[in-house]
């Protein structure tokens, strides 16, 4: 409670500081972007940053692209409110990188050029496969984008201290949210249109450094508070949560035991398994992650960059334990839910509490809150830029150059279209985000992961490793997985028929799970197999070329 009151008192200090720090970040990254634009001449510069980044640089950039608002604010909030179950996300998000490392990164780098579709369409008929890949890239990116921007909008009123009934620069909470979404959207368009992949990569690197530093400082302060005894921290968190030892065990949020409701319990446990599968298989199908592998000169360096990313991301997810349980112990779930029901402000609130204790009272609290809030904005901004770049690349390179123009577009033309596409996709995402403000952020991210795992991953793996795979199989896998995931979510309790649904007053749900992965991912793989065997197309020679090139790096771009 004391912290909540302190929050009111120090709001104006931290608000000014948050804005200042955020503007400093924007100024630095814009300067980098403009510098990068002077180095961007060819299509390879725009799409793949000139393929000149080192393994460490790209590892940082991958981490920057991957650690979104869902990772930083979402997981810390989930752990703070539901204890152990939030940690499940951290583990799934990390283990997922082994799929990318062992099965995808190097082969994609060796055989592709700018986009995921380069590999999918390598030995297929170009137009239908590139169109399908483009569609699924845009669907995944838009869901992911909206999630980040809605998150930014929801956070701004809390972080800048604008509550219902108060105003900031003459704006009420709702107007400020919309203004923030437009500001974030406009900045992300500038980064992408002006800086291309080179500018965006440096923005990711700066963001990753800021995020890791912020999380490290908070983790050290939390652990220092408990004299570096993890057990004491956990005990205090469990005690403060009011749920006792249950807080440290799985089952408060996912796979809930419902006494007397065997079917309900079964569905709840299935939902946990479904989420687990979607998390671990989604990463290697995310378009903005896949395009990162093209920014390095060789597949060996792509491997190295994934190793760096696993190290950085793994360390960050270990920090989330201290952040989440620290927030539960030092801020308390009551104070967190008073600010944000979903717990998204747990990390910034923890920063404030730590600042008050260790950096000299309320001013210290305001300063640390401002720093972490600015880091959160930087996080969101960088991720949306990465997503916009990946989807506009797919529109320009896959759809425009190879479908519309049949492969005879000039580089200059392609890059021009990519810039226009970034503008349009950015504008669409801004518009949808404004209308989607009531949507649940976690739902959108989980859907993006489920779609990526259901539509993109089967097509990528079959393409790389199955000689018989063909155009028909690729179309079936992508459209089948995509439709299954989207339809199941539409008829799930997330959209209608429950108190927390998008449309709580209506009920058309018949699918009992909130995450479709456990059905839609196997369905995507099955579709790919059926589509393949019902078609006679069977080009051994093209597969020989793909296999030789993907394994040896011969002829790599």
């Amino acid at each position, binding site marked *: 409670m004391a912290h909540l009151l302190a929050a009111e008192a120090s709001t104006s200090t931290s608000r000014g500081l948050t804005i200042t720090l955020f503007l400093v970040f924007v100024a630095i990254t814009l300067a980098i972007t403009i510098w990068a634009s002077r180095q961007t001449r060819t299509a390879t510069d725009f799409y793949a940053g000139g393929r000149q980044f080192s393994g460490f640089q790209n590892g940082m950039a991958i981490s920057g692209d991957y650690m979104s608002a869902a990772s930083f604010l979402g997981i810390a909030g989930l752990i703070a409110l539901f204890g*152990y179950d939030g*940690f*499940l996300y*951290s*583990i*799934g998000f*990390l*283990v997922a*990188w*082994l*799929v990318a*490392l*062992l*099965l995808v990164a190097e082969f994609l780098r060796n055989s592709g*050029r700018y986009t995921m579709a*380069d590999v999918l369409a*390598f030995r297929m008929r170009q137009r239908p496969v590139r169109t399908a890949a483009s569609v699924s890239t845009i669907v995944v990116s838009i869901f992911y984008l909206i999630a980040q921007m809605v998150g930014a909008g929801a956070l701004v009123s809390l972080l800048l201290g604008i509550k219902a009934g108060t105003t900031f620069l003459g704006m009420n909470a709702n107007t400020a949210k919309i203004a923030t979404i437009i500001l974030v959207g406009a900045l992300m368009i500038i980064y992408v249109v002006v800086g291309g992949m080179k500018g965006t990569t440096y923005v990711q690197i700066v963001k990753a450094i800021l995020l890791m530093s912020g999380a490290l400082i908070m983790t050290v302060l939390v652990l220092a508070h408990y004299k570096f*005894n*993890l*057990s*004491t921290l*956990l*005990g205090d968190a*469990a005690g403060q949560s009011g749920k006792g*030892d249950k807080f*440290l*065990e*799985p*089952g408060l949020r*996912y*796979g809930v*035991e419902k006494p007397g409701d065997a079917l309900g319990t079964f569905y709840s*446990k299935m939902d*946990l*398994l479904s989420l*687990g*599968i979607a998390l*671990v298989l989604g990463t290697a199908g995310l378009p903005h992650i896949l395009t990162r592998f093209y920014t390095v000169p060789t597949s*060996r360096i792509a*491997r*190295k960059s*994934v*190793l760096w990313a*696993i*190290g950085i991301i*793994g360390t960050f*997810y*270990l920090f989330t334990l201290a952040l989440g349980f620290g927030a539960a112990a030092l801020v308390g779930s009551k104070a967190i839910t008073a600010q944000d029901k979903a717990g998204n402000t747990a990390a910034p609130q923890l920063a404030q509490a730590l600042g008050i204790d260790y950096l000299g009272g309320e001013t210290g609290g305001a300063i640390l809150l401002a720093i972490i809030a600015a880091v959160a904005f930087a996080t969101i901004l960088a991720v949306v830029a990465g997503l916009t770049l990946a989807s506009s690349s797919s529109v320009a390179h896959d759809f425009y150059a190879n479908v519309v123009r049949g492969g005879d577009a000039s580089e200059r033309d392609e890059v021009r279209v990519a810039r226009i596409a970034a503008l349009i996709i950015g504008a669409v995402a801004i518009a949808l985000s404004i209308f989607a403000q009531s949507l649940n952020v976690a739902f959108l991210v989980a859907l993006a992961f489920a779609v990526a795992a259901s539509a993109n991953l089967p097509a990528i793996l079959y393409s790389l490793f199955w000689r018989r795979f063909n155009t028909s199989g690729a179309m079936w896998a992508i459209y089948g997985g995509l439709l299954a995931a989207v339809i199941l979510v539409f008829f799930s309790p997330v959209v209608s028929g429950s108190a927390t649904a998008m449309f709580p007053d209506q009920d058309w749900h018949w699918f009992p799970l909130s995450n479709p992965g456990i059905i839609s991912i196997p369905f995507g793989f099955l579709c790919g197999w059926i589509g393949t065997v019902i078609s006679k197309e069977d080009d*051994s*020679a093209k597969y*020989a*070329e793909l*296999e*030789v090139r993907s*394994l*040896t*790096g*011969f*002829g790599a771009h």
Partner: protein
Amino acid sequence: MTTDVPASSSTERYLAVQQSEEFGVLRHKLRSFIFPMTIAFFLWYALYVLLSAYARGFMSIKVAGNINVALIFGLLQFVTTFLIAWYYSWYAAHKIDPLADDIRAELDRDTRSVR
């Protein structure tokens, strides 16, 4: 797609390389590592998720202070992820990269002589 190989002869050459013994060894060494390893870490992760869903009693056993089996199991997932990543990079650098380099060097030589 553009390739650096003259189109006329390239198809047969790729097929010839793919059928060659060296390439067979490379493919075998690669696949016999990445496929079993993928299955292994997936089963290990699935075991963790299944225990979280169905073995609450086991997961809640306290090992030291407030540190229970669930937390240790979760942290072990981090440890295995780091170890598998490190082992793969070692295996690839020592057992796969040299074979791939040899085949690519041969292809590069052929390409130059065709020109």
